[in-house]
């Protein structure tokens, strides 16, 4: 293959968002007639790279060449017109328009007031569907189609514009095994026609079944490109995660007490099923797995945001009913959500108002807010958690991410929770504040609270947790004691392919 002219030649591609470099000097050649997998942990840069190829993002540095000719892609539309199509996991379409219209929209031939050739359009759409061998009524609105069918429409769209590069970003995640097989058959046929396909997936089994070559990303850099046969699963996992453990993360000794929170056979169809575990007082239990494995959904179910359909939750040994978050708070649970901008802070309110929001009864006995009490509580929290700010009256939105996160933690600590659920508490905060956070989590456990820590950062889980639970595709796949935990063990449980091999 390397003797051919690459369809895409990427040289020194880098991308910064704000001050953060998410992609660093990536060189990669993609050849006609290959299916090329991009692998990496969440945030490793593979999706960013794919989006640069598809014109969604523009590189901060570096050049792209298409069949030897340098190109700049100003928009996805421009990329599409050059024969590059990105197929999103959740297809971006126009739900109210018919399948046929979705196929041709944006092809841009003819004037804006030119006549829409309905009959021809429908014929062409049927032809493309037949080509793919799928049976979809092209006159129906997109809205009613299954995700698998919507993906097929997207693929048909790539064919309609005669795309030479088709990028599939985790296309199989929402599909049933049978639908995956159909997708693969089509992908292979497209490859044999000489098209190039980029396939992004977390499922090694699928990568092995489908792909010719694989490129592994880590921390924004390309680590390895090789034919798939040249790498074992263990090699791939090692290349994906191989970053050194940070020594300063250190779990303090805490006395582990009685079970504070237990869940039994918790299920919510479509999100997770049959989840059982317990967390004891003084214990830090990690919940690992890939993004989309259902970890956050379990936390949200426990806290009553989107309750489970079946199963039990027990707090300190007593079965409880948590239908909404206020029930959870009354039982002594606290939940620091993942996306603080959406679910955590009241952006335009002051720091003190944000901190005191969890304890209305304390600051406003009889319904009237006593500012002095509010102030004292907030001041105490700011000192204890070392929150850096200009003034308690400052809108919380002006603080840095890490300090916002601390303020939210402070809010929940005011409720004196017995069980604290932290969802990706250190995402997007800088390394110094992270270290403080780890200390704080340790202190909280030492003071006898039970902590459930959801995190995608393996080193964080390994350093802090007494036990690590791992979820994959909505199921609990491992419960690993601290002594046995390593990056390989956790990743193996998180990546579906390896899990099945281990079970066999």
């Amino acid at each position, binding site marked *: 293959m390397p003797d051919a002219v690459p369809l895409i030649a990427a040289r020194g591609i880098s991308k910064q968002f704000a001050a953060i470099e998410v992609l660093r000097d990536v060189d990669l050649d993609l050849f006609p007639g290959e299916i090329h997998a991009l692998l990496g942990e969440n945030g490793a840069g593979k999706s960013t790279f794919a989006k640069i190829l598809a014109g969604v993002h523009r590189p901060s540095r570096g050049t792209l060449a298409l069949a030897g000719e340098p190109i700049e892609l100003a928009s996805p539309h421009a990329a599409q017109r050059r024969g590059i199509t990105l197929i999103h996991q959740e297809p971006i379409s*126009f739900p109210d328009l018919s399948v046929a219209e979705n196929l041709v929209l944006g092809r841009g031939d003819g004037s804006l007031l030119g006549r829409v050739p309905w009959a021809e359009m429908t014929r062409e759409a049927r032809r493309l569907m037949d080509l793919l061998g799928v049976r979809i009524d092209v006159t129906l609105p997109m809205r009613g189609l299954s995700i698998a069918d919507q993906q097929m429409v997207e693929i048909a769209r790539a064919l309609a514009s005669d795309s030479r590069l088709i990028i599939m970003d985790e296309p199989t995640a929402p599909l049933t095994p049978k639908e995956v097989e159909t997708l693969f058959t089509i992908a292979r046929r497209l490859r044999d026609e000489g098209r190039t396909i980029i396939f992004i997936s977390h499922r090694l089994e699928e990568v092995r079944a489908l792909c010719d070559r694989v490129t592994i990303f880590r921390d924004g850099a390309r680590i390895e490109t090789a034919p798939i046969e040249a790498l074992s699963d263990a090699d791939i996992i090692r290349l994906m995660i191989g970053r050194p453990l940070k020594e300063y993360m250190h779990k303090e000794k805490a006395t582990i007490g009685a079970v504070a929170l237990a869940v039994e056979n918790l299920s919510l169809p479509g999100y997770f099923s049959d989840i059982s575990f317990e967390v004891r007082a003084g214990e830090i239990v990690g919940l690992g797995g890939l993004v989309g494995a259902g970890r956050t959904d379990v936390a949200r179910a426990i806290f009553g945001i989107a309750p489970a359909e079946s199963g039990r939750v027990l707090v300190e040994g007593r079965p409880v009913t948590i239908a909404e978050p206020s029930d959870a708070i009354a039982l002594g649970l606290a939940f620091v959500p993942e996306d603080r901008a959406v679910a955590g802070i009241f952006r335009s309110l002051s720091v003190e108002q944000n901190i005191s929001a969890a304890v209305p009864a304390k600051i406003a006995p009889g319904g009237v807010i006593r500012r002095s009490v509010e102030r004292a509580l907030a001041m105490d929290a700011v000192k204890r958690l070392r929150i850096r700010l200009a003034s308690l009256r400052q809108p919380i939105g002006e603080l840095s991410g890490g300090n916002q996160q601390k303020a939210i933690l402070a809010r929940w600590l005011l409720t004196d929770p017995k069980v604290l659920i932290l969802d990706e508490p250190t995402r997007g905060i800088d390394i110094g504040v992270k270290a403080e956070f780890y200390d704080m989590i340790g202190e909280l456990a030492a003071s006898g609270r039970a902590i459930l820590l959801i995190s995608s950062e393996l080193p964080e889980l390994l350093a802090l947790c007494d036990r690590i639970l791992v979820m994959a595709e909505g199921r609990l796949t491992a419960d690993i004691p601290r002594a046995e935990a390593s990056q390989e063990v956790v990743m193996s449980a998180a990546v579906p392919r390896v899990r099945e091999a281990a079970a066999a």
Partner: protein
Amino acid sequence: MTTIRSILGRREAGIFVMIVLFAIAVGIAKPQFLTLNSLRIVLLLVPLILIGAMGQMLVILARHVDLSIGSVLGFSAMVTGMMFRYHPEIWWPLGFLLSVGIGAGLGLLNGVLVTVFRLPAIIVTLGTLNLYRGLTYIVSDARQIDRQYVPSALKAMSQTSPIFGIPWIIFISFAVVFATWWFLMHTRLGRQIYALGSNPVAAPLRGIDVTGVTLLVFTISGALSGLAGILYASRWGFVNPSNTGAGFEFQVIAAVVIGGVSINGGVGTVLGTFFGVILLGCVAAALPLLGIAGTTQNAIYGAVIIVALLIDRTVRRQGVKSLARARA
């Protein structure tokens, strides 16, 4: 049963059934309602609303709303009327050009505020609803354009007929309906309006000029309100700074929504909107016949909207359920 449901599931059919049921109900109480003459009354009541509804429909399809149309109508009609008053020698059909042009300009201003300054359309047009009305008072010195100033040829358009005794004004409104249908169904630009309202995030990714399309729908809405303005002068023979066009936006938006255009954009047909306007017209025509005082009309209009939406939602839920069963 399934076929009945799937027909009822189509919005246009549902609203047509509502029109028929309403006509029968009124006809039982007052048999004279079911005559050709009432059809004439209904048709004469609706041309302005029909024209306004076509423009409003485009705006709502693109996931915006235009509340200012009543004042656009009033201002366009007022300036045109003043031209007739001060320059009676001018060839009267130029009034159409002036009124439509002014309306288009005011609509374009709405569009610019929405696109360039990224303000929500509901607030922008709430503002210009008052702004344009205020300007109408200022330019007119709060004086009405009286009957004698409106050219008689213009007034005649609401009475004389080219064919079948149907006045010009009704033909004009039907021509606008047809043109809108053609534009939406058969031009790429028309389909882009649906696409934009259906998924504003995806639209630019497919090369749709979002700013251009948004400016266009507001400009058309303004231009058609301007057309409704001069036809107001034709139909009623005067232009009043406070009454002309007042409440127009309510009737028009009501008709569009009753006609099945989704306030969330992307969904709706010209036929549905047409039926929505006709249903409102039937209600308006029936009220005096039933001896219901003009003072209660507004309450009845409001109730009709809510009842129509409730019926529609119930019918459509059934339709969706049966569709789901058919697929399963």
